[in-house]
C-alpha cells in the first residue's frame, strides 16, 4: 500500500506544481484515494481526474470563515438529544453492572461532573496473561471489594458472653483466592481484642463491665455489623467486579481507580480505561481527557441509535479542554467565563451578572454575537464578520 500512497502523493505534487492547484489533503484522503486506485484499477489519467474532482468536493465541504460552527454543533447534538430515553439505568452489555446511559450520561459528560453516577473500568491484560484464567481471577479478587461477610459459613451473637463469633469458610476463601494471613491481619488490625483460632474468630464487645446490659446489647449488634462489613481485600474506590470472556479475559468494575490499577502488574497499560473523564485528565493528561470526552459522547449517542457527526463532538471536546483543565459547558464553565457582561447576563443569572458588573465597573467591548444582538447591531458572523475601512494613506 505504501508505494501506491507514494504514487498518489507524487501525482498530487505534480498537479500542484503544474497547475498551481494548492491541494493539501489530510492523510485519510490519501489512504482512501489509494484504496480507490487499487480497487477500481484506475489508469493514471483517471487518478488525476479523481484527484481534481475530490479537490472540488473538498473545497465545497470546507467550513467558510465566519461560519457559526458552535451553533451548528449545538443544534446537531441537541436535536438527537430530544429523542434520547430519559431512563437512567440500563445494563450495558454486561449483566449485573449498572451504567448510566442516554440523556443523563450525555448531560454528565458536558457538565464535566467530578463525581459521576456510575464510574466503571474496563481492565485488559497484557499479552502473556490474556488467556490465563487463574491469574485473572486472582487479580479480580485483589481488585474487587470483599468483606468478612463474603467468606463466613456461620455467624453468631453470643449474648451470654457478649461476644461475636464468626466461622470462616475455607472453601469460600479458596474460591476467592484470598490469603489467610492477610485476612487474619486485617481482622486483628480492626479489632484489637479479636481471638482467632483456626477458622473460628471471636470478637468480644468493647465494654467489659456488664452493669448496663441494655446498652450493651445494642453495642454488640453494632459490633456484629462492623465485623461483617470489615473489608479484607480490594482497591479503594472499587466495589463489585465482573469477569468476562469475549476473545480474551476482561474485568469490568463498579467504581474506578485508574491510577492504582495501571500501576499493577499484568495489566494492559494501553487499553485499560475508565469512564470517569476527570480521572483520565488527572492520570493521563488533558489530551487523553479530550479523546475520552469524544469517545464517551459518541458511544452514548450511538448506543441509542443516534448518529451525530464526530466533528461536532470534537468541537465540544476542544472547547471543554482548551484551558488545560476539563471545564463544563454552562453556567460554571464556558458560558460563565465569557468576557462580555451582556453575553453572560443573557445566559443565566441575569441580575447577578449585571449587579456585579456595575459594582466592578466592567466594560463591554461588544465583540461577540449576543452583545450585538442585544443592542441591535449587525453581528460579527458570516458576512457581518468583515468591515470596510478607509485607507487614509492612499489619497
Amino acid at each position: 500500500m505504501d508505494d501506491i500512497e507514494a504514487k498518489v502523493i507524487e501525482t498530487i505534487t505534480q498537479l500542484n506544481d503544474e497547475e498551481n492547484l494548492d491541494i493539501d489533503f489530510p492523510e485519510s484522503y490519501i489512504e482512501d484515494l489509494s484504496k480507490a486506485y487499487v480497487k477500481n484499477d484506475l489508469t493514471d489519467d483517471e487518478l488525476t481526474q479523481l484527484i481534481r474532482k475530490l479537490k472540488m468536493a473538498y473545497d465545497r465541504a470546507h467550513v467558510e470563515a465566519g461560519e457559526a460552527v458552535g451553533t451548528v454543533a449545538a443544534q446537531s447534538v441537541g436535536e438527537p438529544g430530544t429523542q434520547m430515553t430519559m431512563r437512567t439505568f440500563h445494563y450495558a452489555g454486561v449483566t449485573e453492572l449498572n451504567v448510566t446511559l442516554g440523556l443523563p450520561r450525555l448531560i454528565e459528560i458536558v457538565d464535566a461532573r467530578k463525581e459521576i453516577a456510575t464510574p466503571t473500568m474496563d481492565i485488559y491484560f497484557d499479552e502473556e496473561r490474556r488467556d490465563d484464567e487463574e491469574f485473572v481471577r486472582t487479580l479480580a479478587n485483589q481488585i474487587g471489594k470483599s468483606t468478612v461477610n463474603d467468606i463466613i459459613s456461620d455467624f453468631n451473637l453470643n449474648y451470654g458472653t457478649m461476644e461475636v463469633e464468626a466461622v470462616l469458610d475455607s472453601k469460600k476463601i479458596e474460591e476467592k483466592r484470598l490469603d489467610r494471613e492477610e485476612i487474619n491481619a486485617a481482622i486483628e488490625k480492626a479489632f484489637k481484642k479479636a481471638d482467632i483460632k483456626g477458622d473460628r474468630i471471636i470478637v468480644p464487645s468493647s465494654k467489659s463491665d456488664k452493669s448496663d446490659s441494655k446498652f450493651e446489647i445494642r453495642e454488640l449488634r453494632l459490633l456484629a455489623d462492623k465485623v461483617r462489613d470489615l473489608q479484607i481485600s480490594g482497591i479503594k474506590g472499587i466495589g463489585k467486579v465482573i469477569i468476562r470472556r469475549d476473545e480474551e479475559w476482561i474485568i469490568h468494575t463498579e467504581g474506578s481507580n485508574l491510577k492504582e490499577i495501571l500501576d499493577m502488574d499484568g495489566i494492559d497499560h494501553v487499553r485499560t480505561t475508565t469512564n470517569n473523564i476527570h480521572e483520565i485528565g488527572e492520570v493521563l493528561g488533558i489530551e487523553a481527557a479530550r479523546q475520552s470526552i469524544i469517545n464517551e459522547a459518541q458511544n452514548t449517542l450511538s448506543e441509542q441509535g443516534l448518529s451525530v457527526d464526530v466533528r461536532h463532538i470534537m468541537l465540544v471536546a476542544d472547547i471543554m479542554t482548551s484551558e488545560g483543565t476539563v471545564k463544563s459547558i454552562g453556567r460554571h464553565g464556558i458560558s460563565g467565563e465569557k468576557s462580555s457582561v451582556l453575553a453572560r447576563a443573557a445566559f443565566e443569572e441575569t441580575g447577578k451578572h449585571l449587579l456585579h458588573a456595575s459594582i466592578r465597573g466592567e466594560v463591554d467591548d461588544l465583540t461577540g454575537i449576543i452583545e450585538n444582538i442585544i443592542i441591535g447591531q449587525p453581528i460579527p458572523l458570516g458576512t457581518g464578520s468583515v468591515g470596510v475601512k478607509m485607507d487614509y494613506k492612499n489619497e
Partner: protein
Amino acid sequence: MKIDIQDHMLVPKHEIMTEEEISDEFSDVDYDFKDLPKIKSNDPVVKAIGAEPGNVLRITRESQTAGVFVTYRIVED
C-alpha cells in the same frame, strides 16, 4: 512498577518544539502563538516529557476524520 502513560491509547504524541520550529510554524498565522490552547504545567504528560511553562508542544493526534492531525498547546502554570 512505574508505567509510561505515553503508551496509553488515549494519549497522543507530545513533543516540545524548539524556538526555530515555533517561529517557522507561527510566522504566517494571524494569531499570536501565546493564544494557543493551553496545557497545565502539572499535566502528567508535560511532567513525563519535561516541558516547562512557556514551551509549545506539538501534539500529533490520530483523528477519526483526518487520519493524522497536528495541533499545538502552550504550557502554562
